[in-house]
């Protein structure tokens, strides 16, 4: 019936316009004020009638109007509607401007509700496409670093694709997941790492948000607090990152736009330690070509100088021939042929013994320092290319595109590439039905040499001996890693100067590979049942499959027979929402909107791991080409959640806004019968500047306050205690294999309750002095209770852990966003400064019955701990014993300190504050942007510092001829008090020790107590620097390009960490483990961070 009406309408219009057409015709061209380009698809309507038309592809229109009077209305979504009285004109050209107010003030909030920003009673951070794309950073999370207050983002390390941790308003879970929920195009987007919590294993594993190409992001909203995110339900405790991709862009300015973005960036290691090149490998000032440490004799070039200076009697002899005669001055026997006599004829020499016989011995090897690190690392590259095509009118639009990123790391064979295809469309039917949908396909491939963290081979026995980082950073200075052979010329097996895997051999042969295929998409259908009642149904699926392989070639040391492990991970998430919205203006002053929704969610995960041992031939690294295969894991996980939620908004006179939310969840992971929980919240926004007349210098002022609770369910399968099957045992005595089973060590909890986080936030926003200064301040205080944790239980109960609801954790903080435009000249020169400041203080109020939870780390009493009264995740380890005044106690006999009886907290890894400062200078088409990022505080234990110190690698350990005295007083390791002399005074330590003892031995140096290697991680860096130029319209006229710009980009070009060991040149931005771990405060030595520089080009047709 409506259709018939519509048809009639149109017929009438045509008829009427035909009648009017006899009067006169007005024509014109519509252009954009932004760049002067013509605008197709603009609606042109004769005011007060249904007479209208739209502009053609060149922005031209023609409309019939009555002979006299009349007004034309020009409108297009995203542009300010304009009216123009026709008068006597027959040509009316109009330049339309972007509707800044409309574009900036509408934000996407929970479950896709678009809301005026001024109506929000809570803080939401927004980033637009140009703030994250073409930033020389293929990781979407790292591209956001430093740009939003309240959000801390830490990159894992410098390996391409390595994981990135993001914490919004602190960390709200002691042992559980601390990562926010990602919503991409309205559907949850799994951001798991699927790695191993153990820092000794792989350090390059990605978090799956890496599958989002930042260049395809249209906008990002970060829902920081509980008030903003509660409607998303159980996973919203840690905040929500809502990403809209270009696939679901709603409207486009032109009828059709094709744009291309391309960039090339080069990357190199961000810092190389200042190595010492004075002493050789060995110990106690004696050269030894088999050692790792650099405590040997001086290098030949320094022998004379040191002898002169210290009166020592070093010689330039480093090795002896079999008859006792010295090798030529300044040479030693070749370390490779020492281990593999005769294998490399070039490295051998014939030596005539005194009796005339000739023996083949290792050839002389020149003792000189080598730039091991500089030569090993290479210049990497990031290449990005992307094409997007969008076409739209007011009623419908489609978007499609393709992008590819290819990154080569700074280590050989360390790469990642990502290919994305997307398609999206939406349309508004005249009968009130709205339909939209998107599909994205992503293929991400990552390759890296085996990369367990370095600390674990030297300190913790074996776990990472197969890692490229096992000893790379502290190989002997005189060992020519990059010049000497690393593989067997015949069988390709490992060659190194001692029984370890050569880093070059690992880099060539032992690779980790991950191939991810991911598809996600959604369909939304909405219908306006009446003017005030809308029903919308959204559904979507997000699925990926990660196929991983770990290859270890036979012929190495740590795994002599090689191995191939395949790991198949798949994850599928379905999410459906049915949302009913009622909106009604009750009277002129009061309007009301209520939303009732229902959400059903299912997450299905499976992982199968097969370990193949004993590779049959090195030329085929496949699981079925190994002689033994074991299924290490066949794991499935399924969880479901049903939620019902409501969101009610009231607004009074457009300056007072009240928002009440509530959600009830039913979760499959909680005990049946007690699996539902409700959480409510309310927020208020008061726009002062609209309510009362403000002084003229205040353009906008708003106060807001919110109090909300969010509940969170458990991980699956924690309710019951289960048995576990063991690997079969082959008895040497009896035939057949013996299968085993054990009752699990973790006690399930049949009365498990959900976790809750309560949050209060209050904030103010203001813009003053003609919008020159804009300020947004938020204070929040959140308390997380009933934490679901696995707590230690008395072992004589038969169990090691029990699942419990324990404790309380609080996070309080300030978020300040300050936007200042100090200079804005009439010649278009503008300087804008944006400060994003975050200060969060966390406290473990109650860590359960024992008052502490040890999260784990390098050792059983050395790692990250939560302890009552202390901030989140402290560094726990040993310290030197001190007296009541803080003097270090020294053992009189050894001259060395000794440890306190028990370990304690030795550092706080949480930063005091972070500040991101973005400066934008623009002048005509030129834009210079610089993001300076300052993190104050945040201690970390540096294994790189420890390793390099104790191996005598650093320039600061060159002074090693004299004796030294550890500052402190004599004390007793029985009473832990200072020893007193006959007068009752403390005695200063005067027992000297050698440089070797100082650095290497247990006691004082890096090999001493854990506290010695804890550094303050304060760092200031130039995170981003870019210089862009947009070609003016005048140049582009006559070319097919609508827009063209080119920019030079730089990333992490400079950093300074003033309190980290001098000369280490280490970038403190590294994660302890992968992003899903709760461990923090340890730097284990993974791929160093990189600095990048390059350029990009963006064109649109």
């Amino acid at each position: 019936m409506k259709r018939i009406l519509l048809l009639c309408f149109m017929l009438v219009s045509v008829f009427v316009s035909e009648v009017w057409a006899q009067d006169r015709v007005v024509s014109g061209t519509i252009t954009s004020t932004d760049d002067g380009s013509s605008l197709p698809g603009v609606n042109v309507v004769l005011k007060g009638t249904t007479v209208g038309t739209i502009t053609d592809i060149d922005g031209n229109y023609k409309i019939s109007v009555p002979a006299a009077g009349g007004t034309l209305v020009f409108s297009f979504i995203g542009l300010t509607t304009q009216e123009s009285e026709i008068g006597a004109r027959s040509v009316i050209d109009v330049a339309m401007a972007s509707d800044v107010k409309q574009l900036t003030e509408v934000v996407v909030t929970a479950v896709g509700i678009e809301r005026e920003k001024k109506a929000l009673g809570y803080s939401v951070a927004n980033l637009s496409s140009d703030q994250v794309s073409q930033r020389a950073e293929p990781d979407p999370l790292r591209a956001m670093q430093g740009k939003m207050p309240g959000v801390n983002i830490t990159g894992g390390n410098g390996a391409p694709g390595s994981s990135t941790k993001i914490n919004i308003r602190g960390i709200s879970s002691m042992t559980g997941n601390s990562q926010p929920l990602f919503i991409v195009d309205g559907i949850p987007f799994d951001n798991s790492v699927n790695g191993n919590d153990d820092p000794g294993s792989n350090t390059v594993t990605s978090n799956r948000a890496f599958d989002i190409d930042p260049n395809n992001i249209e906008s990002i909203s970060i829902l920081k607090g509980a008030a903003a995110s509660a409607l998303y339900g159980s996973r919203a405790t840690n905040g929500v990152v809502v990403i809209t991709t270009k696939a679901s862009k709603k409207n486009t300015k032109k009828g059709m736009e094709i744009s291309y973005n391309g960039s090339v960036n080069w990357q190199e290691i961000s810092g190389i330690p200042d190595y010492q090149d004075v002493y050789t490998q060995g110990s106690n000032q004696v050269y030894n070509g088999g050692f790792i440490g650099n405590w040997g004799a001086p290098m030949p070039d320094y022998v004379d100088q040191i002898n002169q200076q210290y009166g020592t009697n070093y010689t330039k002899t480093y090795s002896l021939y079999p008859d006792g005669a010295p090798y030529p001055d300044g040479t030693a026997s070749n370390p490779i042929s020492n281990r593999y006599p005769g294998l490399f004829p070039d490295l051998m020499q014939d030596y005539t013994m005194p009796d005339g016989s000739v023996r083949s011995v290792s050839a002389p090897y020149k003792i000189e320092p080598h730039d091991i690190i500089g030569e090993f690392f290479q210049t990497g590259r990031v290449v990005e290319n992307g094409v997007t095509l969008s076409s739209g009118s007011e009623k419908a639009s489609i978007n499609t595109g393709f992008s590819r990123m290819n990154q080569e790391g700074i280590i050989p064979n360390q790469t990642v590439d990502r290919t994305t295809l997307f398609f999206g469309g939406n349309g508004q039917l005249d009968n009130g039905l709205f339909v939209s949908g998107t599909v994205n396909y992503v293929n991400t491939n990552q390759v890296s040499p085996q990369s367990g963290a370095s600390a674990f081979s030297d300190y913790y026995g074996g776990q990472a001996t197969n890692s490229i980082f096992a000893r790379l950073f502290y190989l002997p200075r005189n060992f020519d890693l990059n010049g000497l052979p690393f593989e067997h010329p015949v069988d390709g097996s490992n060659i190194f100067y001692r029984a370890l895997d050569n880093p070059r051999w690992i880099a060539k042969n032992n690779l980790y590979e991950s191939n991810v295929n991911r598809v996600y998409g959604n369909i939304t259908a909405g219908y306006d049942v009446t003017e005030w009642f809308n029903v919308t149904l959204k559904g979507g699926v997000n699925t990926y499959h990660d196929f991983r392989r770990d290859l270890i070639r036979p012929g190495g040391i740590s795994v002599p027979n090689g191995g191939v492990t395949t790991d198949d991970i798949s994850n599928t998430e379905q999410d459906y929402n049915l949302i009913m919205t009622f909106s009604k203006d009750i009277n002129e002053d009061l309007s009301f909107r209520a939303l009732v929704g229902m959400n059903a969610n299912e997450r299905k995960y499976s992982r199968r791991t097969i370990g193949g041992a004993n590779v049959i031939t090195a030329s085929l690294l496949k699981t079925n080409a190994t002689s033994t295969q074991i299924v290490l894991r066949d794991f499935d996980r399924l969880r479901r959640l049903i939620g019902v939620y409501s969101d009610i908004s009231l607004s009074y006179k457009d300056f007072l806004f009240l928002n009440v939310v509530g959600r009830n969840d039913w979760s499959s992971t909680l005990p049946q019968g007690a699996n539902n929980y409700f959480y409510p919240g309310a927020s208020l926004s008061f726009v002062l500047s609209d309510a009362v007349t403000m002084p003229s210098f205040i353009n906008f002022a708003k106060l807001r306050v919110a109090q909300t609770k969010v509940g969170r369910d458990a991980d699956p399968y924690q309710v019951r205690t289960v048995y576990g099957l063991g690997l079969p045992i082959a008895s040497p005595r009896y035939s057949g294999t013996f299968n085993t089973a054990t009752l699990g060590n973790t006690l399930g909890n049949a009365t498990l309750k959900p976790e809750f986080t309560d949050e209060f936030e209050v904030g103010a926003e203001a813009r003053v002095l003609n919008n020159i200064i804009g300020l947004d301040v938020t204070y929040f205080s959140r308390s997380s209770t009933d934490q679901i944790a696995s707590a230690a239980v008395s072992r004589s109960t038969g169990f090691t852990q029990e699942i419990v609801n324990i404790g309380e954790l609080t996070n309080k903080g300030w978020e300040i966003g300050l936007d200042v435009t100090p200079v804005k000249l009439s010649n278009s020169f503008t300087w804008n400064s944006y400060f994003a400041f975050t200060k969060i203080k966390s406290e473990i109020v109650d860590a359960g019955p024992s008052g502490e939870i040890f999260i784990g780390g390098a050792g059983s009493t050395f790692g990250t701990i939560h302890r009552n009264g202390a901030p989140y995740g402290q560094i726990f380890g040993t310290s030197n014993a001190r007296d009541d005044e803080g003097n270090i106690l020294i053992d009189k006999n050894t001259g060395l300190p000794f440890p306190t009886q028990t370990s304690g907290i030795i550092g706080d890894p949480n930063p005091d504050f972070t500040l991101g400062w973005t400066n934008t200078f623009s002048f005509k088409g030129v834009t210079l942007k610089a993001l300076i990022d300052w993190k104050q505080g945040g201690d970390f234990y540096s294994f790189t510092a420890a390793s390099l110190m104790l191996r005598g690698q650093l320039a600061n350990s060159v002074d090693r001829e004299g004796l030294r005295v550890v500052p402190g007083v004599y004390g007793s390791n029985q009473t832990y008090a200072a020893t007193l002399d006959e007068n009752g005074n403390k005695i200063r330590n005067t027992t000297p020790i050698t440089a070797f003892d100082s650095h290497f031995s247990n006691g004082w140096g890096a090999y001493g107590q854990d506290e010695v290697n804890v550094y303050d991680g304060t760092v200031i860096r130039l995170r981003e620097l870019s210089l862009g130029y947009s070609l003016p319209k005048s140049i582009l006229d006559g070319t097919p390009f609508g827009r063209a710009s080119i920019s030079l980009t730089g990333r992490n070009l400079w950093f300074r960490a003033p309190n980290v060991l001098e000369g280490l040149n280490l970038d403190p931005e590294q994660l302890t483990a992968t992003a899903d771990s709760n461990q923090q405060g340890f730097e284990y030595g993974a791929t160093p961070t990189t600095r990048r520089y390059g350029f990009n080009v963006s064109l649109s047709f």
Partner: protein
Amino acid sequence: MKKLHRKALAAFMSLILLFSVSSCDIFDLDVNTDPNNPSQAAVDLLLANVLSNMSSSLAGGFNGASTGFMAQTTANDDFNFSNASWNGTWNFLYSGPLKDLNELVAAAEAQGNNPRYLGIGQVLKAYYFSTMVDFFGDVPYTEAFKGDAETPIKEPVYDDDAAVYADCLSLLDQAIANFALTSTVAVRGDLIYNGNMTRWRKLAKTMKLRLLLQTRNVSDVAGQIQALVTEGDLITAAADDFQYEFPTAVTPDFRHPWYQAAYAGGEAGFSYFGHQFMYEMLVNGDPRFPFYFHRQTTTVLNPDDPTDKQTIPCSQRTDCTYGYFVVES
């Protein structure tokens, strides 16, 4: 207008229907049963696990401490033991093999008419708990392993060691009685006797003799000892030995824990025989020598040759080198 509304609503309802029909499972929340692990375990699986884990722990945890003098490990070599030295062993035993043994006995009892498994469980329980008492004195016993009981006990009390010993003796008597019953249930998962019930019976009686001998100074057990000897059903042949033989396969690695620690992997090995120990055995012509020392060579090793692992310094310490031993041919 109305008609159209109805049409649209119908379309809407069918969408909802589509989504609910195709995935009606999504509303089923009863999916929290762990699909990866069994909720039940057969007694033979538990038995194999108990024997393997217990043997590893006795060989590794306990043995590591008692043979400190023969090994060059930090804590054991210099007898630098602390209250925490056996935490690991204790924790593992209670939450590992002892718990599974408790499960085994409980399951065999609950099944009824399963005297063989029950008897084996009782013998093992007597052996292991008497060993715990020998090592630690008072230990949690009557209230142990009740973390998952209907009324859970989270902090079990320590039982008097004499009472635990007495109960162990009673368990052995029960086991002997159980072994005398006929049963059609064949015993599997028995890594020690492979289900040979005669040997288990002999073990039960021999174990009883052992416990009696150990208590001879505190109570008069002469009569009971005499009775056992007279009966003569004791372990007398090597074939009857209560002996666990460690597997030799590399994967899965169930080799002797010390073998794994000392030899597996590049330079991971942490322990090596003490020089003094080797010297004493050599000069005294100890017949166990060739069985204890696997690494033997007939020539003097070159201490300057860094390719021989045995001559290089310990990888974690500067104050020792790996020992090496020379047997003159």
